[in-house]
């Protein structure tokens, strides 16, 4: 008899718990309804890419020494470096350079290892084409300056969530000049320079 009653009380408790959790869940859903949509109305509004955004690769033909480091560090040996050896000057003569962005994974290794910094990553990401072969950029196409979200008059640039001032969730409310939450890398560097000696001393003392 007691076991039966215990079972019933357990059952009732579970039912009430279920109701409680359901109410909590609905409260969460309801709370979310009051928040502003985070939708970015894409062709009219665009997010400003972050500082280290790895977009389409920019290439400067004149800086390139045809060393082929980019080819060697590329996971799939993608860049095509077309050069000939000039017998008279005994120097490499670059004729063509191309990267196929339909195959590129934008890992940035080539940019990292390029000895002359002729490769760099841009913030351009709108690479859609009607034909996949038109993604095979030659040195002219690679040398074009990237399109810029902030300078396009038909686009409202929006800051990404990490670049918004503190306690602001909606990029529509901020002006482009508002600083983001936290310190900029340069400010952190300054702070570290100023506080480093005492900080390290304290650390050493505490360790001792």
């Amino acid at each position: 008899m007691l076991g039966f009653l215990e079972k019933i009380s357990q059952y009732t408790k579970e039912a009430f718990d279920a109701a409680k959790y359901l109410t909590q869940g609905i409260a969460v859903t309801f709370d979310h309804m009051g928040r502003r949509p985070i939708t970015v109305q894409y062709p009219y509004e665009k997010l400003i890419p972050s500082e280290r955004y790895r977009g389409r690769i920019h290439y400067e033909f004149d800086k390139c020494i045809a060393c082929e480091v980019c080819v060697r560090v590329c996971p799939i040996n993608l860049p095509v470096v077309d050069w000939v050896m000039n017998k008279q000057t005994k120097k490499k003569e670059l004729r063509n350079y191309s990267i196929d962005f339909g195959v590129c994974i934008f890992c940035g290794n080539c940019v990292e290892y390029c000895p002359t910094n002729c490769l760099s990553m841009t913030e351009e990401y709108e690479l859609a084409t009607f034909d996949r072969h038109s993604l095979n950029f030659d040195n002219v196409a690679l040398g074009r300056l990237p399109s810029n979200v902030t300078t396009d008059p038909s686009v409202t640039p929006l800051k990404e969530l990490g670049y918004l001032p503190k306690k602001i969730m909606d990029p529509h409310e901020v002006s482009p000049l508002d600083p983001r939450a936290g310190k900029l890398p340069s400010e952190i560097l300054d702070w570290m320079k100023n506080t480093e000696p005492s900080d390290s001393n304290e650390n050493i003392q505490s360790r001792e």
Partner: protein
Amino acid sequence: MISPGLDLQMNFEQALESFGFSHEVAHILWLPLPMLLVLTAALIGVLVTVWLERKISAAAQQRIGPEYAGALGILQPMADGLKLLVKEDVIPKRADGFLFTLGPILVLIPVILSWLIVPFGQNLLISNVGIGIFLWIALSSIQPIGLLMSGYASNNKYSLLGGLRAAAQSISYEIPLALAVLAVVMMSNSLSTIDIVNQQNGAGFLSWNIWRQPVGFVIFWICALAECERLPFDLPEAEEELVAGYQTEYAGMKFALFYLGSYINLVLSALLVSILYLGGWGFPIPIEWLSTWLGESFNSPIFQLFAGSIGIVMTVLKAYLLVFLAILLRWTTPRVRIDQLLDLGWKFLLPISLVNLLVTAALKLAFPIAFGG
């Protein structure tokens, strides 16, 4: 206490007779009007619900939702409907064409017929049939046949499984639903929806059935959600398992019939909850008090018009609050498994609804004043 309220039929027929029509002709002219009215009301209800569903879902997920079709995307359901209307009507080659066509019709017709018993005011309903709420329970039991039919006729394993699941779910949740309704009926001594609402409108919102039948309200709402195949009970069309359940092979207008059916059913269930438990067309404070405060005679035509419109607004408002709750529930709860569904129906709701019925009967005998002697 009970006022005659607006009587549209009498007014309409009297108007026609004053134009020189005979009584019978006037009656025949009146006949199709309520049906048209029901169809229009149901369709507008569905359009509004679809729009609300999309907008509220979007808000709950911090999206924007339909925006460009009309102001705030209000024309989006119309656009959807138009798209389905002009879409090709595909019948799969190995499907059973006749049953395939009959299935969606059998699903939709009972739902629309059930609107007969939904009152929006003292005389604002299509027919005050004596069996009232029982008609809805009987009609909603036809629906599984249509679902089984379309599931079988599609000649597709997902459709068949979806149809079987829908039928199993529908017949298991019908029983606690009927028992919850029975407790309400016991208190009002009548199956008629009008009597049920009148019994609740003695003292404004304090006399609503939700205070006397809190358990019944919860049971009814859970069962109504299960009957409408709303999340968390949308197993028959669980897209991760069954593609789209019994709707898998349907396209165009036949799919639209299913779509309409499910949304009309949702609005209907919400309306019935508001009628059975939330006082139907009743204003939160008794409308007679309002008349004395406003210094207007209760039986004056202007006040009757005012009371009638308040009644319609209140019924629809309560129903849409429940629709809103259903949409919130949709984005809160995960889908239950089929064994959990049947466990909930047979091992939880059924015993509880039986106990609820017993307690209601005992309370009715013990306190006949509060529980409708």
